[in-house]
């Protein structure tokens, strides 16, 4: 079920109504759990059992880590919990990659692995399970019980199932942290709904997703082999630019919708995208793009590996390994790993430069740096769109070789026009300290009215969120 389906709106209305009816106030968490399970089961009913199994593993593991008296037993149980989560993820998500890389597809095991289905959202809910288990272990390492774990297994089970399955973030994030979410689990009241905050997030989210991403996808559709071979250099570059905007609009839009939906039920989700395309470095980009993932990778992979505390060479290795894993998390193809390595490499190069080159560029160079970083990031998105590496090479060859082909002016105009709001969105952020921004804020209701008008009249055909495949 997509957030843009009419069925979803029906489910949302019914859930919202039941959630705030006073007689059901004590069952609010249960209502949201049932609604979330229905949301997940709608497209793939059988995978709901997997979701429940994953939640059960994390419920029991975290509970027993907290209740065990021995440090070594707690450590072992935590390790088992992490391994089980990773095993689930590897089995369901990477079986096809493992099959094609290490096995003959005609062999029985190779053939078997090829047909393992990919459950939606598995990358997200297994990562949340890992974060819960590790957080509980870290809490108890200090010798006291974790405040995340309720003494009653039943209450803990309900809270954890809710944490993992809550529908706004279930299938494409943001990846929540138990420490931020569990304290919010309490009775909610209709009068406390922050309507303005919810409205703004929902409007901007749906605009980015339905108007920008869903329309751009119809033009960037041709960014696949063999169609791109017959497009001009200008078409190829503009289309790639459009894809860069599309992937941001799709994912950031989804995250904002998730934040807005959660707000309707009184829950606060963390910001997941903070205007990433104004980044003037890759380090900054990863503080603005998919913040919940980069935070997860930092806290549960980079820092445990040693972070930057074990010398320069080890720091660079840790960065490369973290980004390699981060890349592979995005998809079960080696092109995603290459994408991760590229970003890791850029982070390493930036560190090398900042450690060894003490020249400070004047502020006037900031736009140049932003554009340069944006160009590099945009080209790296090719690895997302073209999972086969030889197609990426062909794409670059076509950019070089198709200069004499005729441009498709109208298509390029549409791509640029649909991309303009995202550019404007980022520029507005850069102006937020200026007077003009303060002036414009007074009339923001006009802007939201216009956005809503475009959502109603200019939405593209509903397509899956790009990040669903992750």
């Amino acid at each position, binding site marked *: 079920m997509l957030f843009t389906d009419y069925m979803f709106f029906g489910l949302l209305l019914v859930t919202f109504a039941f959630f705030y009816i006073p007689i059901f106030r004590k069952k609010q968490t249960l209502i949201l759990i049932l609604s979330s399970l229905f949301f997940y089961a709608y497209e793939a009913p059988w995978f709901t059992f997997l979701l429940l199994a994953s939640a059960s593993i994390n419920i029991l593991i975290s509970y027993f880590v907290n209740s065990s008296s021995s440090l070594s037993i707690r450590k072992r149980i935590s390790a088992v919990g992490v391994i089980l989560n990773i095993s689930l993820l590897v089995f369901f998500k990477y079986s096809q990659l493992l099959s094609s890389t290490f096995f003959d597809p005609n062999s029985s095991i190779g053939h078997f692995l090829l047909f393992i289905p990919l459950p939606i959202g598995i990358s997200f809910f297994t990562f949340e399970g890992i974060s819960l288990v590790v957080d509980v272990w870290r809490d108890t390492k200090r010798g006291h019980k974790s405040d995340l774990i309720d003494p009653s297994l039943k209450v803990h089970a309900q809270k954890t199932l809710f944490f993992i399955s809550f529908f706004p973030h279930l299938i494409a994030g943001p990846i929540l942290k138990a420490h931020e979410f569990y304290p919010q689990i309490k009775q909610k009241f209709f009068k406390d709904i922050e309507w303005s905050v919810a409205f703004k997030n929902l409007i901007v989210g749906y605009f980015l997703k339905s108007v920008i991403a869903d329309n751009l996808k119809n033009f960037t559709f041709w960014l696949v082999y063999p169609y791109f071979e017959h497009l001009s250099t200008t078409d190829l570059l503009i289309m790639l630019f459009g894809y860069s905007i599309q992937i941001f609009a799709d994912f950031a839009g989804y995250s904002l919708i998730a934040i807005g939906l959660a707000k309707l039920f009184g829950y606060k989700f963390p910001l997941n995208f903070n205007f990433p395309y104004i980044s003037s470095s890759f380090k900054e980009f990863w503080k603005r793009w998919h913040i919940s993932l980069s935070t997860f990778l930092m806290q549960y992979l980079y820092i445990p590996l040693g972070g930057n505390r074990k010398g320069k060479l080890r720091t660079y290795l840790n960065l490369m390994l973290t980004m390699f894993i981060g890349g592979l998390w995005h998809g079960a193809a080696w092109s995603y790993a290459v994408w991760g390595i590229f970003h890791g490499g850029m982070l390493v190069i930036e560190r090398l430069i900042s450690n060894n080159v003490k020249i400070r560029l004047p502020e006037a160079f900031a736009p140049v740096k932003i554009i340069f970083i944006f160009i590099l990031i945009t080209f790296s998105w090719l690895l997302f769109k073209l999972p086969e590496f030889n197609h990426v090479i062909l794409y670059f060859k076509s950019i070089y070789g198709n200069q004499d082909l005729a441009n498709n002016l109208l298509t390029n105009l549409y791509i640029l026009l649909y991309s303009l709001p995202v550019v404007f969105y980022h520029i507005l952020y850069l102006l937020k300290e200026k007077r003009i921004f303060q002036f414009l804020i007074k009339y923001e209701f006009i802007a939201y009215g216009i956005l809503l008008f475009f959502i109603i009249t*200019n939405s593209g055909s509903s397509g899956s969120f790009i990040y669903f495949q992750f």
Partner: protein
Amino acid sequence: MVKKSLLVCLVIFFLYNVVVTFFWYPEIYMPEHQQQNNYITAQKYLYSNDRKIFEGIIVGSSLARRIDRDSLKKVNIYNMCFDGLSIYDGLNAIQIKGEYPKRVFIEINVVDKDADKEMTNMLNNPITNILRANIVAMRDGKQPMRFIAPPLEHRILGFEYALYDWRHKNRSKKKNDIVPAIGEDHLVSADTIKSEEARPVNKAFLDRNIERYHLNSEKVYTYVDQLFYYVSDLQQNGTEVVFFEMPLHPLLLDTERTKTIRNAFLEKFPCEKYLYLDFTDFSEYSTSDGLHLEPKSALKYTNYFLSQAWR
């Protein structure tokens, strides 16, 4: 803030709907891309304001979409073929509307393709169907963006024409040959048509299609069986069904796929009981890629089709 935003939206929406319904090219629906062009084709059929029933409807793929619509309009035949989609999308639209024409012409070339999920969702959504039937602004082809992009393209091309003229001091190429008229609801400008005539068949695409057509499609018989239910439904509602085959490149005539499709149809829908347009001589027509007729050939086939349609 929320109420003020909703009010702004309501006002703009109302004004916009009035403008697109009554003032700004009300009969023109401008697609942004291929799939939207398909939606417009379906929605024009579903939500047509004049309640006439078509004499005939053609259902098919991008191959039969080449049959000239303007010529068909004169004899009240509606070309409901979709680029990249299948005959089932057109047949589903007929069932949903529930108004059956006298004849339905079914293209047999691409029988083994499922109905498109997005098109099916669009056709079957009761809420959007009611909204689109009554509010013109909600229909595809009436998006606000169409007020911006095509006029901008027109101005840029106009500027290019002026620049070209200034550079070459040559007035022999007329402005309208380069700059398409605003408001035309087709994607091909006059200049493009002329340049298509001059282009030889795209060999890479032709070779790929030849390779594909030499593979036998086992699914054809299954799809033809599925088609039987649609045909029966049409006949039960008083519609005559006519099958036709779009001409292809001659190299595709003796391929496994072409032969399998013809045999499957003749077995399930024998000539004695069902109507067919005579199979044409492929060598009389030229295609751009082995499958899709070039414009001149498309016009030639249209004339042939019309001569056979009410035979």
